[in-house]
């Protein structure tokens, strides 16, 4: 399997990205949660994949080369707000609560 890692490294080095082990799918737990939420919402019928994909394409186009999962998170935020599954108010308030450590739920 070392060949695979070599390939990952070569490509990661190509554009000056920090060296990554491409075999690790997620670099931080929040990335796996953001990923899992979209697939689960799709499976549960709350959101349609093509709609999410379109917003992901838009976010990536606007974000430049990096922060793939940041684009992913922005895309799902936009979609749940557009579909009025959540309101901008409750999302920003809840985000502030977590940022201030007023909440620490375990998922």
């Amino acid at each position, binding site marked *: 399997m070392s060949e695979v890692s070599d390939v990952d490294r070569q490509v990661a080095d190509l554009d000056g*990205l920090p060296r990554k082990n491409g075999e690790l*799918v997620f670099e931080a737990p929040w990335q796996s949660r953001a990923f899992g939420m979209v697939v689960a*919402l799709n499976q*549960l019928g*709350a959101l349609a*994949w093509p709609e999410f994909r379109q917003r992901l394409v838009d976010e990536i186009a606007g974000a430049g080369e990096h922060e*793939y999962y940041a684009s992913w998170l922005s895309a799902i935020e936009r979609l749940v707000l557009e579909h009025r599954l959540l309101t901008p108010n409750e999302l920003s308030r809840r985000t502030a609560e977590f940022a201030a450590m007023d909440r620490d739920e375990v998922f």
Partner: protein
Amino acid sequence: MSGDDVHHPHPPTDLEARTLALESLLIEKGLLTSEAVDRVIATFEQDIGPLRGARAVAHAWVDPEFKQWLLAAPKEALTGIGIGDHQVEELVVVENTPAVHNVIVCTLCSCYPWAVLGLPPTWYKSAPYRSRVVVEPRVVLHEMGLDVPDDVEVRVWDSSADIRYMVLPERPAGTEDWSEERLAEIVTRDCMIGVAQPRVPASIS
């Protein structure tokens, strides 16, 4: 979040806080459960990997009829060997031959045949790969360690939301008496993206 992260003394980053907020609210609204998210992550990290695709390739190598079926009707053929739940409208299997080498990309985002190859590697999602492999595939493949001879045509397949591609690599010489299980072991994820070729380990040949 899980484990020790919860107890660390530092406040979460903006991205972490937004992710936590989104998940907690969606759970409260009854749109999601944390178990459903856990299940997805576990499935993609552990259960669904390139192994499913590798099994299909190895089977196609030993069974010419299955190979024709896989090329003609990939989803049906995969279902036929117990690989279901393809999660995609259309799956196209492109065959490498002595005259043609295929490579897949998604120029717009990261469309990828998840159900057979697992999650895409980091580089597949990188802007340089997505933009360059279309323009100069031979150069990119060379940089990734694969030299395609000049007399072999390189075909680049751009994935979309509706159509995903998977490469059926060529069976390497020297594997004629190998079992299907052993063959599957040399079919790596990169072989099925088209940025590598299956190799017979030097110690065996």
